[in-house]
């Protein structure tokens, strides 16, 4: 073994990396689903939405939660992103391979990489907009979504895709459940969350733009 590799060797490094990818991923999926349910409280009325937002503020849950999620978000990008091939030839191999194999899970992964990169960009913009427009209130959110509904629609679809298949893949990897029923369950949950998100987006769009 070469000296530089001998001196820096940590046999558990890749195990930790893999665990960090798993834990941050699961945390983000949990967060996203909770987040969408919270947003969907707008379906019960402005008052409910504001009460929940106020509650999260009063108990400092937002002030702890948001920085924590940003940290997890960045860590997840680093942990999962380590797998991404960046060389031209590797990229060519992957696209050629996916087209040739026509394997569903292989294509899902290709799109997961793409959605991941897109969420990195769009999610950051979203967080910036929310934080600079603090606090979260029904009318300010509604105005934002009225003006940028297309942005939120894209982010919602990307996020749910990435989260749904991400959690599916982790379960497949660790083998806690068989693949087929697992795929079915994650798709069902994703469909429900997506429906809630779309409904909330529609209500917000209708509510906003009054001024």
């Amino acid at each position, binding site marked *: 073994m070469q000296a530089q590799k001998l001196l820096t060797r940590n*046999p*558990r490094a*890749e*195990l930790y*990396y*893999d*665990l960090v990818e798993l834990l941050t991923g699961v945390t983000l999926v949990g967060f996203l689903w909770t987040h969408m349910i919270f947003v969907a409280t707008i379906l019960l009325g402005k008052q409910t939405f504001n009460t929940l937002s106020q509650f999260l503020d009063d108990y400092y849950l937002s002030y702890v939660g948001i920085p924590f999620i940003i940290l997890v978000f960045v860590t997840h990008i680093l942990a999962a992103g380590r*797998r991404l*091939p960046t060389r031209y030839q*590797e990229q060519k*191999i*992957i696209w050629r*391979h*996916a087209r*040739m*194999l*026509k*394997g569903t*899970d*292989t294509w899902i*992964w290709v799109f997961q990489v793409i959605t991941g990169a897109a969420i990195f960009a769009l999610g950051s913009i979203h967080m910036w907009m929310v934080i600079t427009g603090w606090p979260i209130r029904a009318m300010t959110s509604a105005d934002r979504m009225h003006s940028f509904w297309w942005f939120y629609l894209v982010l919602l679809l990307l996020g749910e895709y990435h989260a749904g298949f991400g959690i599916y*893949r*982790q379960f*497949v*990897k*660790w*083998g*806690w459940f*068989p*693949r087929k029923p697992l795929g079915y369950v994650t798709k069902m949950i994703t469909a429900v969350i997506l429906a809630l998100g779309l409904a909330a987006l529609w209500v917000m769009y209708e509510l906003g733009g009054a001024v």
Partner: protein
Amino acid sequence: MSTKQRKFSIFRYNPNTPEKKPFMQDYVIEEVPGMTIFTALNKIREDLDPSLMFDFVCRAAICGSCAMIINGRPRLACKTLTGDLKGTITLMPLPVFKLIGDLSVDTGTWFRQLQLRTEAWIHTDKKFDPDAVEERMDNRVALEIYEAERCIECGCCIAGCVTANIREDFLGAAGINRVARFMVDPRDERTPQQYFDVIGSDEGAFGCMALMACDDNCPMQLPLQSQLAFVRRKMLAFGLLGK
């Protein structure tokens, strides 16, 4: 009996004549009932083109030599019926392995280094006594070992794997399955740490991204998803708890 003409589009390349770029060559032959890709290839070589290179030995899905990419998927030529495929049949050599020429690849060298890297032999301090009665083994354990041993080393799982296609040092499902076989074997006295050193890295268990092309394309229908997950969980326990 009706006869049907079948068109084959076959990858051609000879590393000895690198000035001639890889290309696809078409052949048309008569399809007979029960024809496999293997019999079709022999017919093409006999009747149309003696220069066509491809591998086979047993023609009964035991030796694993005739694996190739058939209409985009890794399959055994001897186990794939032309009648089950629609339209032109496209044949490509397996990726990852060294290309010998046309459809022929060298899986042997690759699997040899797999055996060495995974140390695919029983590690024991016990002295072998040829006169002693063989030790008994629990039937359930024997079956578990046998299940993993059904691997014929055809290379379909490696060829289908995205990670193996871009990372030359990745052991793939065949390698991880091989280690799983020794982990359940009570005769192997390796410590958790020894196993971890062999496969607890991105070249082994943690390199898998769970795209499951191995599981989808194994001609022997080995339970590769559960084997990969079994080793991954073991590596987690070995790495964190040391047991």
